């Protein structure tokens, strides 16, 4: 394992800046996820760590070793690709052995390590198969075994679960996390799936347009998004423009809200954000959102999802599925001050 440090790395493609002056530190054994929409620069960043792409400026460090100009085959990273990128002409065992062979390890040591790795991903017995004879889930495990068997300084994942079906995805995601903890490998993980990022990471780096929007642990990122982009990208969010009027109060078209936390100077325009699950049906006295007309009701099993309209503004709410709500109903909601975030 190693500590990973990116210092001001930038990568341009013509006039397009894919990665824009990024600073990031990943500690020994930490699991950090780069999360963002496609084109946000997360994969480019990952590939720069692997050495497939050279940064135009900035530096990459593994511990106190400067890796910026080191070719990929001398970096001791291991990457799990979205396509798995297994070698089709080699058996499972040969695939896993490849990294060890390149490191010229003694044959006995190779065999021991391959067995170990295949045990960890429960693939014993399939050593002689070719990748083409395996299911998607099994191929994914081979890719994982091939990566960890080399005992890399840094483990890299490029959307490794996107080719699996939903059920398998959740299972493998837990297995990856468990394996990473057990082996204590510094890990950089790329995904566009916010649920995956929340479930798997020690810290999440939300990226947008080549820049870092916010870095934090999953709880902080979800509960205290710094920007409207982060609030919206991680789960659903209601984002409303308002005006601070002093005394911690914000006036908005959908109602007036008490805001805790950041002190707000009067008559400043602000953006407010809260989660659909923070909308609670309220008696008239405690309500801060009134006259919300229900436009649609979607049954989601353990909850119902509402789209309501307040003074022409759409808001999303999640309510207990026992509640009998119908389209056209007029409701009042209360949102706790502690759940409302002032965002950029």
């Amino acid at each position, binding site marked *: 394992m190693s500590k990973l440090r990116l210092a001001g790395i930038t990568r341009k493609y013509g006039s397009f800046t894919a990665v824009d002056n990024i600073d990031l530190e990943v500690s020994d054994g930490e699991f950090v996820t780069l999360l963002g929409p496609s084109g946000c620069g997360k994969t480019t960043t990952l590939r720069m760590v*692997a*050495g*497939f792409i050279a940064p135009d400026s900035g530096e990459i460090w593994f511990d106190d070793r400067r890796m910026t100009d080191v*070719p*990929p*085959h*001398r970096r*001791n*990273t*291991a*990457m799990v*690709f*979205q*396509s798995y*990128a*297994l*070698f*089709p*002409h080699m058996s499972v065992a040969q695939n896993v052995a*490849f*990294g060890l062979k*390149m*490191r010229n390890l003694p044959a006995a040591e190779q065999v021991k390590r391959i067995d170990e790795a295949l045990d960890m991903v429960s693939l014993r017995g399939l050593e002689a198969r*070719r990748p*083409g004879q395996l299911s998607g889930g099994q191929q994914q495990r081979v890719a994982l075994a*091939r990566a960890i068997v*080399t005992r890399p300084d840094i483990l890299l994942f490029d959307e490794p679960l996107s080719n699996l079906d939903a059920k398998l995805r959740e299972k493998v995601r837990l297995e990856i996390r468990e394996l990473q903890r057990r082996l204590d490998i510094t890990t950089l993980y790329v995904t566009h799936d916010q649920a995956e990022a929340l479930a798997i990471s020690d810290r999440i780096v939300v990226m947008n347009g080549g820049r870092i929007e916010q870095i934090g642990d999953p709880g902080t990122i979800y509960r205290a998004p710094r920007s409207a982009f982060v609030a919206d990208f991680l789960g659903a969010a209601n984002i409303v423009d308002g005006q601070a009027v002093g005394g911690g109060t914000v006036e908005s078209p959908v109602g007036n809200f008490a805001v805790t936390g950041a002190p707000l100077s009067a008559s400043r325009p602000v953006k407010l954000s809260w989660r659909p699950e923070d909308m609670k049906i309220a008696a008239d006295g405690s309500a801060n959102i009134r006259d919300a007309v229900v436009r649609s009701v979607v049954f989601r099993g353990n909850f119902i999802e509402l789209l309501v309209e307040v003074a022409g503004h759409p808001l999303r709410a999640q309510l207990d599925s026992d509640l009998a709500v119908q389209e056209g109903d007029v409701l009042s909601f209360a949102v706790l001050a502690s759940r409302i975030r002032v965002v950029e």
Partner: protein
Amino acid sequence: MNDMQPGRITLLLLIIPGAGFIFLFLSAAILMTFLQSIGLYSLVGESHLTASYWLSLMDKTFFDSFFFSLKVGVGSAFGTLLFAYPLALFLRRRRFGARTIGSIIKIPLFVPALVAAFLILNVLAFNGVLNNVLLWIGIIDRPMRMLNDTFGWNVLIIQVWKNLPFQLLIIASVLETIQTDIEDAARNLGANPLRVIFHIVLPLSAPGILIAVVLVFILTFGDYAITRVAGPVYPSSLSVLMYTDAFTLQQWGIAACIGMVVIVASLAFVAIYARAARMIQGMGR
């Protein structure tokens, strides 16, 4: 969709124009040549079953020609590969100049074999470009004799020149099918560029190499024009020998025997190729 299924007869009628044409002109022609070689169909004189053509074919001239053709075939196929493969690897990286080189290299594809032979002759001739350049630089002090040498170097050189773009196109298209991810994975696991080529690119492009080698072999094994113009006086290639037997010596029966040898040898190589290709494909999937 139920009663729209075409019947057997309809299918048969549909394939007749294509398959029938090939069948008529391939099978019938091969059969006639075979019959001719055993005397059952003669263009001159009476037809009767005889082994005399085959027996009189089996002399030193024939074997020398056979091995000369084999040498030219195998030599051209692998000799071309020696240049085509590294070139394909280079062009694939799309480095500076790759496009220009890629276009220039295709020129021999559009030059007929006979013309190609003449073009190269001017370079290799006793008083040709190469000799003059070498004299001028001072590497040699007498012009070298490079044409009509007994080994057939000049034939090989012309064949390589002529077939290079052909192999290049085949190999390049196979290299295109190798995913970048797979090479990246190899680099990531510690393979330096040379080992990536050796362990990943080479095995994955083996089917393409095989196709390229076999096709060039078949094209060059039966060559007439280039051997005739630039080849040694003796031995000649099978095709040249066949021409001489048929048109100069009026030995049509013997010529037919040579034709059979060329066809069978080519088919044998196609069979080897098909087997090997299946084997490699079985490995890859």
